């Protein structure tokens, strides 16, 4: 069994677990009622990650899965009230895209905010200006956001804090989606940069 195959099996296993977590917590997800009757997770435990979504870019343009059809893309769920993992992931992506140069034109990185309530378009536009201009910040209505999370089997939850504030729990990894729109695996910013670069190079080579 080659390493890629092993990785795929592990990745699918992780997706199955994440899917299970998602379903398990679906009662407290924003827009949860739409989750009931979800048939995207089969009983075999293999969840189909990817599919349709409809959101708005940080520049105010409508953006759907049709905009990335035939091209590899990355999806990261985050929010601006996140001091560590979100800006670090975006800055690491920026560094890697700089390293890849024009090759980085061959995939589209997407940040989907899990906190559209606070991350309004104006704020997201300003925030995204710190990173590689090829990274697209996306936000939606609460329903669109919940639907996008379902599409990627991503998890997020609003957690109230004392004093009326709140924070968001969210899936930490970056989803790697092949040119055919299929999930290939995830990228974790704790991995060595060379490993991540290698994953991006493999992603670029995927065929529609």
């Amino acid at each position, binding site marked *: 069994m080659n390493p890629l195959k092993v990785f795929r099996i592990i990745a699918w296993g992780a997706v199955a677990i994440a899917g299970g977590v998602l379903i398990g917590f679906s009662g407290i997800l924003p827009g949860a009622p739409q989750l009931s009757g979800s048939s995207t997770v089969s009983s075999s435990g293999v969840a189909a990650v990817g599919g349709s979504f409809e959101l708005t870019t940080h520049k105010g343009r409508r953006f759907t899965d049709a905009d990335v059809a035939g091209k590899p893309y990355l999806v990261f769920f985050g929010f601006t009230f996140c*001091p560590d993992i979100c800006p670090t992931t*975006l800055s690491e992506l920026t560094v890697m895209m700089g390293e890849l140069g024009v090759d980085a034109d061959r995939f589209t990185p997407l940040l989907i905010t899990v906190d559209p309530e606070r991350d309004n378009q104006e704020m997201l536009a300003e925030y995204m200006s710190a990173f590689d201009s090829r990274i697209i910040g996306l936000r939606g209505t609460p329903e669109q956001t919940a639907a996008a999370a379902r599409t990627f089997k991503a998890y997020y939850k609003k957690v109230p804090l004392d004093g009326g504030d709140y924070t968001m729990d969210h899936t*930490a990894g970056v989803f790697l989606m092949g040119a055919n729109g299929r999930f290939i695996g995830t990228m974790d910013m704790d991995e060595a940069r060379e490993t991540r670069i290698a994953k991006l190079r493999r992603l670029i080579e995927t065929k529609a």
Partner: protein
Amino acid sequence: MRSRIYAATGLALTVLVVPLPATAHDYTVGAIKIGHPWARVTPPAAPVAGGYITITNMGTEPDRLVSGSSSISQKFEIHESKVIDGIASMRPVVGGVEIAPGATVVLGSGGTHIMFIKPTKRFVEGEKFPATLIFEKAGPITVDFAVQGMGASTPPENHGGHGSMPQ
């Protein structure tokens, strides 16, 4: 010839030694030693920023970082970030952070850290800003946080401590 070697050595030493104070800075209050307070460059409009420090308790009694303040943010809090089963979460740390006698606690990126909430200005690389840390026993101390590049994950001199968990 010899003087030239001395001069060259001197120059090399200057080059080696001079940049260090810019990256490494320590503070002491009572039995508490604070190593290299730093923060990361923030994207524009970022509503939060992390602050990172290493705290060593050189005394014989436990102490506790209980709170703090800074003129550069509306609020100063201590939060803990975690990634468990692929899910990132962050929660305020209630009651502060204990530092046992002889222990070193790293408040670092990706773990327990200081949260500057609603910074009044963007953090720019190379700049510094003051913040006051308040310890239960050692009392308050004002330190300068050095702002490092966006990609920074640990201060340069603390690579050995990377990954050590706060206790």
